[in-house]
């Protein structure tokens, strides 16, 4: 992919922009009024978020322009590492042995899962 940001009609940006809006609306619809079971909603919005992130990186943030490729890749790897640590680490830390059942307990599948893991 060559650099397209000099002149001409910014096709890539328009497509990315529309796709971002559509994905956001779909995610909002899935969460608010799709009526799907909770695990499905969570899965759906996670998948949509990853697609959204990829669009951002490739359409707007010039990921594939290579003059400083090594630095970009290094930063991206660190970003994914930190994101994984924040999400997975928080879930792991906050679920194993930690009970937040003090106000009468939750009602969704996720919460029941946590309680199984309590000891």
């Amino acid at each position, binding site marked *: 992919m060559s650099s397209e940001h000099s002149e001409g009609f910014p096709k890539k940006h328009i497509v990315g922009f529309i796709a971002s809006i559509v994905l956001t609306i779909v995610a909002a619809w899935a969460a608010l009024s799709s009526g799907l079971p909770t695990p499905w909603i969570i899965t759906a919005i996670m998948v949509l978020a990853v697609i959204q992130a990829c669009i951002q990186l490739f359409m707007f943030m010039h990921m594939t322009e290579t003059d*400083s490729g090594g*630095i970009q890749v290094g*930063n991206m790897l*660190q*970003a994914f*590492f*930190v994101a994984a*640590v*924040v999400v997975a*680490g*928080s879930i*792991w*830390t*906050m679920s*194993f*042995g*930690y009970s*937040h059942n*003090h*106000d009468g307990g*939750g009602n969704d599948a996720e919460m029941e899962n946590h309680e199984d893991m309590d*000891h």
Partner: protein
Amino acid sequence: MENFINFLVDDFFVTGEPLIYGAMVSMALVSIAIVFVLTYFKKWGYLWREWLTTVDHKKIGIMYIIAAIAMLFRGGVDGLMMRIQLTLPGMEFLDSQHYNEVFTTHGTIMIIFMAMPFLIGLMNYIIPLQIGARDVAFPFLNAVSFWSFAFGALLFNISFVIGGSPDAGWTNYAPMAGENLNPGPSQNYYLMGLQVAGIGTLATGINFLVTILKMRAPGMKMMRLPIFTWSSLITSIIIVFAFPILTVALALMTVDRIFGSHFFTLTGEGMPMMWANLFWLWGHPEVYIVILPAFGIFSEVISTFARKQLFGYKAMVISMVIIAGLSFVVWVHHFFTMGSGAAVNSFFSVTTMLIAVPTGVKIFNWLGTMYKGRIRFDTPMLWSLAFIPCFVIGGVTGVMLAMAAADYQYHNTYFLVAHFHYVLIAGTVFGCFAGLTFWYPKMFGHKMNEKLGKISFWFFMIGFNVCFLPMYFLGFAGMPRRTYTIEPEWMPLSVTASVGAALMAIGFAVFVYNIYYSFRYSPRETQGDAWDGRALEWATTTPVPYYNFATVPKIEGPEAYWIMKSKGETTYDKEKVEPIHMPSDSGIPFIMMAFMFVGSFGLVWEWIWMAIAGLIGVLVCMFIRSFDYDDGFHVSVEEIKETEEKARGGEK
């Protein structure tokens, strides 16, 4: 009208405390004095043109350092007040509520508004000079960073006369910091003050990451970077990845408090411990944000004053990269006692002990650098030498705390308090003092007085050990952290600690007096290389011209200036001078962040109209900036030649 007056007296201003009345009066007097002096000497225009609108990294760096020293004073006074209260059993100097507020502001100010700006100030001044750049990559953004820090600090600091100080500790744990247990504006000051200052820190991280990667002089390869620049690069990376976590956590709690959501509340499915989790996900990398630049400073100082090349440069760099990675996977050691399972606590025990390894490597690098060196004992070197044993005590007790099972005994005792003061004061504060005295001649054109410098060093260093070493034993004796009154059996050690605190205060006072004394009496620097330095910042003239380098040198190895000196090269080659492109000053950063301050103040008091007004002001400033086509200006060859010949005297 009567309602309004009642509001002012009952809620808006903090009333009923003689200490705070005293503070109000002194603040009012100082403000009046400043306004008077500026008006009398007709300096308003000078202040606006030369400082408030500047985008010069050197001036911004100096403003950061001045603000940090002011904050060190404020945080230090908080610390002294706590020591007075804890000296004897049954003291009634502070009541429990007031004590809670004082330890909260002490911790927050020292970390967020003292340690970071002090180091960022030094980075601002030195990094572009060390890599042979004429400014940072985004000078306008740099000014935005500074003003967001300054207004964030202002917002946090006015809390103690307007509305009341936050009192839930610098960690601001939920549910204590939540709306139910802590209504009113005081906690909002913490949230908004940190949020506003955090914008600046994040922008600084991005700025220095890009500056160091993209603005290096020709030939300045990554493995030729001075070690302070390397440490700042790693710090910037940690900032970029850690600060968004704080931003999100603060925003969630702000929404909890102001708009009634339930992220961290006890009721409505909230998870109070999630705050602790998110806070330390940022908070532990933050520890390395404030220690790595200090490591860089010590490396520079030790290498210069041992008159040897830094021993184990590569090992230094690799250990910093490892620290940057590991710093993100140790955060749970701050709350082992939350009661996670054995697997979680053991994992974080092991990672915490692992991170001691690269840190230990660096200790041996410094020792190796000094081995067989011809050491000069100037003040910056004294701070660096004192750092090594003191920091090792702090580090080793840190490994003791890292053992999850043992931590159940140490947690929230004075043992912990002693540990983190040993690493933060011996590491960061000694580092700031070492760096400031080391680079002082470059910044201000004269050295700090050696004799006064040594007096302040000995007072501060001995006072520090007398103050904090007893706290380890107070911790073993069962004294809990954040207690406002002590038991009789802790008295001997407590009195000792208070004596130490007084010695530290004397040391700090001498340091500040030294700034004044040196300004009056120190001989002026006639050339740029005050300490027989090795890195590129010493190649510039003193004072540094605003464009830094008349001609950018070609870098031929590590220790760029050492090589240049041996060849007789300078940063001024008459044949190669070309017009230099520099950025224009701008008042927008100051005005934009002033609006941000107004909006945040509105949010603190939950006056939504004011928050919206402030936000609109910020957006208008951004809009104006977006259509600002000022590309800066060019410095003419004649001006450069004139400046350089004047600065260099007869030379060349």
